[in-house]
């Protein structure tokens, strides 16, 4: 299972906006062996606390059959969360399917540590791999929603002032506030390091 495989697939589509339900999720299921991946709109999430979360768990399918891995991406339906933000939140949470064993909250002690780090962010060099994955998956999501070949097309149009940031965000169906990160000089380096497995 590799983010690189997903990224190369999406980059090869040569299309935008990248559609999560028909392009990204089926490929992730193929690559990851996740049995089921669902989105779950939830109207009782407090968006001051969280815009969404991923929950992965095993579910028995019958007395004599193996259990399945279920992934649920729960997101807030609060109208203050725009369609583009909803897509970004869900894409970021989907990227946690690629979490390495160290990055997964797989037991009580690890989840308690992650919760304490989210409550009181630690210095980066002291942070757990779980906590660091929260940042890395945001870059991964941007890479999926706008892979480098697509980003070059839009960067050229931005520089030529053929499009403004809002128009880029609208075309890609991503939050306008993520366009600066997407166009930053760091973006290419992050994606390259992710593809190299660093």
């Amino acid at each position, binding site marked *: 299972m590799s983010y690189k495989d997903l990224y190369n697939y999406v980059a090869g589509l040569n299309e935008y906006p990248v559609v999560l339900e028909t392009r990204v999720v089926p490929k992730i299921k193929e690559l990851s062996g996740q049995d089921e991946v669902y989105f779950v709109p939830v109207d009782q999430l407090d968006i001051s*606390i969280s815009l969404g*979360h991923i929950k992965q768990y095993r579910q028995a399918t019958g007395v004599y059959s193996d259990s399945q891995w279920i992934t649920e991406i729960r997101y807030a339906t609060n109208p203050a969360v725009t369609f583009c933000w909803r897509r970004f939140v869900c894409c970021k949470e989907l990227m946690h399917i690629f979490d390495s064993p160290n990055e997964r909250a797989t037991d009580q002690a690890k989840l308690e540590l992650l919760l304490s780090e989210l409550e009181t962010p630690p210095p980066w060099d002291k942070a757990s791999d779980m906590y660091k994955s929260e940042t890395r998956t945001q870059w991964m999501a941007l890479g999926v929603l706008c892979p480098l070949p697509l980003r070059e097309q839009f960067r050229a149009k931005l520089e030529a002032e053929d499009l403004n940031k809002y128009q880029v965000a609208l075309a890609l169906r991503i939050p306008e506030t993520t366009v600066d990160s997407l166009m930053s000089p760091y973006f290419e380096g992050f994606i390259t390091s992710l593809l190299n497995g660093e």
Partner: protein
Amino acid sequence: MSSSKSHIVASLFAGSGKWGPLGNVKFFLGTSRSVTGTQLLDQLARADAQVESGVAQRTTKLDGDLTVTTFGD
């Protein structure tokens, strides 16, 4: 971490009812710069309750009717 919070976290990994043992959970933090672990667990519990009661439905749909453009169009 308080004992009640630890108890909630422990129950997640034991699995109960609809939910099998937890394999991973991560959060997309909201607009507040200050959240507590208890608040995040509460968000998880709210979503669990909505799914269990059928108020929230699992779906494979998210993107609506997006019009896709191919490079060069």
